């Protein structure tokens, strides 16, 4: 894992925990933790708002074509998607 990815995992975990008010459940998320379908707070409205929060926080623009089950499958898959955007 590159340093950038490590930063993204911690940051994204905090972002999601904060946005969805997950508390200790959020702090316990790892890269393997499933998101979509496993975190009940992550419904379609939350996904949409979270994407905006991710865009603002990381200074990226999310291509809606990347709004897929694969992207939101786990914390790790979402980090990978973000990192792919962050790489020039």
């Amino acid at each position, binding site marked *: 894992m590159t340093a950038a990815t490590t930063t993204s995992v911690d940051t994204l975990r905090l*972002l999601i925990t*904060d*946005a969805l008010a997950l508390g200790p459940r959020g702090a316990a998320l790892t890269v393997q933790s499933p998101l979509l379908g496993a975190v009940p707070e992550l*419904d*379609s409205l939350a*996904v949409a708002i979270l*994407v905006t*929060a991710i865009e603002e*926080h990381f200074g990226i623009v999310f291509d*809606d074509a990347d709004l897929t089950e694969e992207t939101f499958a786990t914390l790790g898959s979402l980090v990978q998607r973000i990192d792919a955007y962050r790489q020039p």
Partner: protein
Amino acid sequence: MTSPTVPVPAFFDGPNGPLFGIYHGRAEAPHPAGMILFLPPFAEEMNRSRRTVSRLAQTLAQHYDLGLFSLDPSGTGDSGGDLADASWPAWIEDGLAAVAAIAAQGIPLAGVMGLRIGAALALEIAARVPVPRVVLWQPVLRGEVLLTQLVRQKIASTLGQSGQGSRAPTSQDLHAQLRAGTPLEVGGYILPPALAADLALVASEPLLEATAAPIDWIETGSAPPPASLTALSARYPSRVTLHHLPSPAIWMIEETPPVDDLVRDLGQLWARVS
């Protein structure tokens, strides 16, 4: 010692049909010393924020004798009209009608507050009539941000459905559908194409300069506000005060989280004499 409060529903005539709003007042004296006009967020965000807004209204009434008049714009909530006929200009008119209705009750207007896209509406109102104070709570000042969010919400709602990955609508499809005049169902609400077109054009940042009222801008994410935001308030130093009040996104979270700190902070903000 806190006095009990009662909800005070109010129906009044608006330019686009009957309008509904609700505030809380002290049980023994429901007429508050001042009234804040509150403009709510849109659709499911309005739904999810109701309970917290109600809690805020009760606190403002109990501790500060301030009413928080939460208006349902035409076609939303309990107001008259169909969402299919809603428009941004109509909602501005509705807000102005609410200001007039409050004045007709002989209650001084303490200011206007808007949450999310309601903040853009609050600025539109403050640009047209004098208001003592504007509070923007996690404002969305560009309608296209909300429109993008609604389309993304639609796409997200199709995820996880049996092997439909390649058949899910694309963002381009959905935006094109709206532009072509077809309503879009999102999370149980039917987004009318005319309203979507209006939202695409809403860009309220210039209105920060269109009111003489002091503006309090509240950011609720726990991360420090982005540099773009601090830069924005620096552009309007005598008008906009940026407040960082980390608190739950109550317009997004279904189960109302504890919001005592937020409610207290907002109450104190409104109680401050400028």
